[in-house]
């Protein structure tokens, strides 16, 4: 659908029989998933369905109690975490910016896995930071303190930090939460650009309509299990929405993108629809 990408090696990410738990509470059960390379995959589901937890599992931020996460066919937990960090970039849900840090400095932290005790800052690092800022349209913010940015600008700066890591995979946990609708679209457009530039993007989203519009591949979860996955036009139906969100809806065609658009019904407006 999206065609071949100009990427020399194509990394793969998958989980088999993955169980994830916080303490004794199991949140994700026996999950099998293979992330389609070179595409934008969106994970959706109701609150507390385990979608963020699954992403944390795939990103090795959480160790499975059973099962394995495979990066290029190797167990991700058997690899050195720094080696993983050169292949797989992650933007967690709520990272904290140190007080009064400058944008260029924060984005530069993304170069950490490429540096070591003997290999400090180089021109290549500067170039990676500049490219990341250019890609997220934040170059003109480079010398501003992060504290002073708007929510949308800040989110783009955090994405720039993950981009400076120069990884094939980019995993983002609800990057549009707390953003105004225009900034949400801005961030998702950016993720699409990054995917078209050759990256594999996996993102957890709240908004089902934006998910349907931007996803090449949508993954729906319910109570820690995978309910459906595939192209949004093929899998998103009124039945699926009822199953995943316990809500009646009508699924129509998005007039802008021709993708499925979910219109919730609720208790008060069902009658009105008939009258029209």
């Amino acid at each position, binding site marked *: 659908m999206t065609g071949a990408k100009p990427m020399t090696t194509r990394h793969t990410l998958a989980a088999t029989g993955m169980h994830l738990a916080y303490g004794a509470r199991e949140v994700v059960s026996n999950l099998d998933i293979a992330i389609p390379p070179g595409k934008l995959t969106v994970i959706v589901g109701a609150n507390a369905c385990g979608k963020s937890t699954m992403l944390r599992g795939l990103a090795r931020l959480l160790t499975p109690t059973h099962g394995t996460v495979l990066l290029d066919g190797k167990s991700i937990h058997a690899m050195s975490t720094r*080696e993983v960090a050169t292949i797989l970039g992650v933007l967690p849900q709520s990272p904290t910016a140190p007080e009064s840090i400058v944008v260029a400095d924060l984005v530069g932290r993304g170069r950490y896995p490429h540096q070591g005790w003997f290999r400090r800052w180089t021109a290549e690092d500067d170039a990676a930071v500049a490219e990341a800022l250019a890609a997220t349209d934040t170059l003109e913010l480079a010398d501003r303190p992060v504290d002073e940015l708007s929510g949308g600008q800040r989110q783009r700066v955090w994405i720039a930090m993950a981009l400076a890591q120069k990884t094939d995979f980019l995993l983002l946990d609800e990057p549009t939460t707390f953003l105004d609708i225009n900034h949400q679209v801005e961030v998702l457009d950016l993720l699409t650009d990054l995917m078209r530039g050759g990256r594999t993007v996996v993102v957890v989203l709240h908004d089902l309509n934006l998910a349907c519009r931007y996803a090449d591949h949508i993954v729906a979860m319910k109570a820690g299990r995978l309910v459906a996955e595939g192209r949004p036009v093929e899998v998103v139906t009124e039945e699926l929405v009822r199953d995943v969100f316990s809500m009646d809806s009508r699924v129509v065609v998005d007039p802008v993108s021709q993708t499925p658009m979910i219109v919730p019904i609720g208790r008060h407006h069902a009658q009105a629809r008939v009258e029209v």
Partner: protein
Amino acid sequence: MTTLAEASGISAIRQSLAARRRRVTILLLAALLAAIAASLYLGDYPVAPDAIVRSLLSPLTGEINRGVDFIVLNVRLPRTTLAILTGVAFGLSGAIFQTLLRNPLASPDIIGISHGASAAAVICMLVFGITGLGVSMGALAGAMLTAFAIYALAWRGGVTPYRVVLVGIAIAAIMGAVISYLFTRARLQEAQEALAWLVGSLNAANLNDILPLAGALVVLVPATVYLVRSLDVLQLGDDAAIALGNRVEPTKLALIVVAVAHAAFATAAAGPVAFVAFVAGPIARALLAGAGGGFLQSALVGAIVMLGSDMVAQHALPATQLPVGVVTGIFGAGFLLWFLASANRQGRGG
């Protein structure tokens, strides 16, 4: 590729941040040198500056001037040296804790490490009748044990900053209670001695205080230099640090061990001098104003605060030498009030 970095000014921004760090470091070094000079010069027995320099160089030149050498080399220099070393150790300890726990209140003198050292020292003095080096060793053990207890109690499959701070404050209260209890049972003479230790003092500083701390710093300072690079990413939160390839839990444990050791050895040498660890990091960060770094600068601020406070303690009141902890306590309390007020104004609330 390089052209984009140059054209967009990324290299220039990074260089200007580095230049600001350098300027702050040079300023602090100059202030420290001035403080060292003043601390060697000031005193009841007047010694001319050139005589001080000659005396300092006497181990090299072989020139002997008994009276001046005694004042400079045996009285003032040990005290100055101990002030610098304890200041550096407290400054680094506080800066590491505050950065790692992402909380400016999380310095060892607030989250119970100093209180643990104090309780152990008071137990040594009042229960076992130990004095001198034994008290220092007890303080060291107390700080280490307390830190271990805080870490263990805060552990829930990893340690979160907030839990460490809360558990630490609780431990500080418990240790305070232990100290108060022991005082109620002590004889007056013993209680006075113990109290003097608790305030923290550089009076009668000698090689027995300096050498263990200097030896510890020979190991701890390189370890700190090696470990603080990890704080660049640990500051962003545990998940972000793992994502960037940091081995978070072992690194945090190593940082905590190093930070506790700094505070423990400094406390063993000079007593739990209040607030030096607490103020060093915030002052350094305020001077740097977002230019990054901060550990070298915190160490320098710690040394300057310690040395400056000790000079005030020695010379502020005629014919009376205050313990340095009284001065740092007053200075630190004032700083805390200012800090809370300004944090509230900015809506961050410490």
